[in-house]
């Protein structure tokens, strides 16, 4: 077996039956959740084989979310660097303004099929909360969103959107009052209401089968990108970039590309005030393996194994963990991970806004900003795809404060 076939097989067969991506992943949760996770996995695997479910999912993605999203040639941005051509995968054009809705639709369909009547979710930037509140409104389901109070104050617009959509937003006051604490609280709710409640996790994190499930629902991003690249450029891209917090947009984009080894995959984390400071969220660059929220993965932690507080200007990347498949892809070196600071990401917002008329989310801006590092290495006959995972309207307050917009 050639090494490339071996690597392809290695990547296409994860997770294993117990939910492990190599050594990462697993199901490290209280016993009370084990039956619920088995039930969920069984339902998910049935849905994968069920044409009616797949049809309903695809119909909603097309008619409600507005898929497929375009692959937009970024002409002025490409000229700016004068190297490879740059394309943007426009997840910002999805209904609700980010890729999060792809997964929310998939999971809410599962919840309905399993007869669950109460939906809970966590949210950081609020995009997953809005997406979940949206699908719950669409199907008339009760919806409770846990959100750190720090995030509530920096993403007020999204809080108002969730409430307008009929969701109850429950502030979480523990720890740093951000995404990680919101997940703790959502898990506590799930433990207490496991019979009637479905927990829609928004990122590719958590116990098995969530990382696999979120990846599969988000993989529509990468599949469309492959088709569009073939159509628009006649071949696959040379580089594909995505930002990584928990890692759902990145894994959705990367997964269909894993077997195409000629495509270089780059994940961009949040370096906050710098990976060498204590204030960052670059888990894969600055963390060590550990267990949080049900799976083994890289983790920002103290020398005593306590979870460290992450920091990023972007609420969606402000998380001390990362999806276990990213840890696996880091160690197997199939994906390269880098990190971009708050300041640099803010410059990325300005760059894309002024060059292409697209205001990216602060999360997305990390991937945009990394072009400064990547582009000088590229050649004019190559092309790059950046996953434009979300739009920046929700971040305007933060952006205005930092960039002093006129």
């Amino acid at each position: 077996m050639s090494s490339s076939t071996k690597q392809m097989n290695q990547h296409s067969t994860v997770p294993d039956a117990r939910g492990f991506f190599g050594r990462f992943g697993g199901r490290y949760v209280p016993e009370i959740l084990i039956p619920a996770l088995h039930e969920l996995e069984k339902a998910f695997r049935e849905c994968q084989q069920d044409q009616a479910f797949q049809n309903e999912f695809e119909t909603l993605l097309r008619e409600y979310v507005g898929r497929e999203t375009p692959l937009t040639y970024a002409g002025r941005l490409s000229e700016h660097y004068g190297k490879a051509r740059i394309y943007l995968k426009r997840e910002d054009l999805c209904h609700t303004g980010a890729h999060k809705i792809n997964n929310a639709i998939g999971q809410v369909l599962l919840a309905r099929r399993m007869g669950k009547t109460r939906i809970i979710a966590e949210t950081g930037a609020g995009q997953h909360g809005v997406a979940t509140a949206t699908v719950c409104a669409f199907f008339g389901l009760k919806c409770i969103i846990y959100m750190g109070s720090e995030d509530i104050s920096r993403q007020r617009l999204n809080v108002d959107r969730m409430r307008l959509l009929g969701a109850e937003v429950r502030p979480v006051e523990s720890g740093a009052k951000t995404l990680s604490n919101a997940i703790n609280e959502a898990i506590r709710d799930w433990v207490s209401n496991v019979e009637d409640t479905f927990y829609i996790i928004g990122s590719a994190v958590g116990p098995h089968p969530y990382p696999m499930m979120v990846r599969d629902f988000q993989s529509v991003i990468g599949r469309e990108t492959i088709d569009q690249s073939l159509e628009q450029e006649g071949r696959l891209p040379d580089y594909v970039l995505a930002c990584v917090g928990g890692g759902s947009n990145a894994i959705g984009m990367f997964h269909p590309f894993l077997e195409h080894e000629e495509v270089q995959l780059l994940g961009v984390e949040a370096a906050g005030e710098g990976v060498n400071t204590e204030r960052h969220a670059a888990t894969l660059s600055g963390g060590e393996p550990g267990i949080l929220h049900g799976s083994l993965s890289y983790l920002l932690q103290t020398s005593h194994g306590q979870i460290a507080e992450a920091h990023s200007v972007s609420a969606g990347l402000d998380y001390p963990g990362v999806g276990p498949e990213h840890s696996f892809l880091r160690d197997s070196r199939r994906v390269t991970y880098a990190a971009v600071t708050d300041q640099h990401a803010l410059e990325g917002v300005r760059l894309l806004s002024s060059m292409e008329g697209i205001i990216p989310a602060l999360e997305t801006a990390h991937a945009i900003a990394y072009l400064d590092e990547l582009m000088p290495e590229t050649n004019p006959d190559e092309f790059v795809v950046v996953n434009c995972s979300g739009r920046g309207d929700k971040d305007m307050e933060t952006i205005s404060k930092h960039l002093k917009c006129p």
Partner: protein
Amino acid sequence: MTSIKGRISRVFRSRSDGDKIMSLFLTAGFPEPAATVELVRKLESSGADILELGMPFSDPLADGPTIQYASKVALDQGVNLDAIFGMVREIRRESEIPIVLMGYINPVLRYGLEAFFLKASESGVDGIIIPDVPPGEMPELDGLCQQHNIDPIYLVAPNTSDERMREVDQASSGFVYCVSVAGVTGARSGDEVSRSVAKFIDRVRKNVTRNPVLVGFGIRSHADALAVSARADGFIVGSALIDYIRSVYPEPDWMQRTGIFVRELKYGRDSSIKV
């Protein structure tokens, strides 16, 4: 009963017929690290049969507000695993009370599994409860427990299937921890659910045959303890103890009053009536 080796099984073997075992959970270092050893002595002299010493974690996702609070208080005062092993050694100088360490896996992993079990065993720890590692998820734990003579204690919940209960029984020694209600620690089971708790414990009894069964979650009084443990070998109190300590600390007689609270938990107000 699987193990005849340790202090835990000795407690169950040596009790009189019908006596209920009371296991108390205390976050190590709460309310202050310097008081833990003396507080444990007080708990023991007031009727505690087993001590569960909580290893505080920053993200205790199976715990309610009370134990979250106690964990934070302990962590803010610098409690870590080495400090806890020190406390256990100190307790062991004059006490044979079975000590079970209870906490989340990440600090243990970070410490190093081998090192952790070696240190735990040397210090005089008898058992371990790691709520975020259910049986089968980290098989090396069971080997290390066996090697170091530490009882692995696993949990069953109302939604655990009969088959899974039998697996948990197989994997455990010392006792099986029976979570009486679906919820986080401190969650309260109302009167209306006590009937379903009784049915649940009966089901546990049918499937858990190798180990004694202790029931926990939501027990706040002697009456709760009597009701919930009627069909079990005993009961576990955690959040109610910590809430009580919180209400009296740091008054000068807080430890004295905690002792009285514990005595009442076990024996009721009229201490002449034994459980």
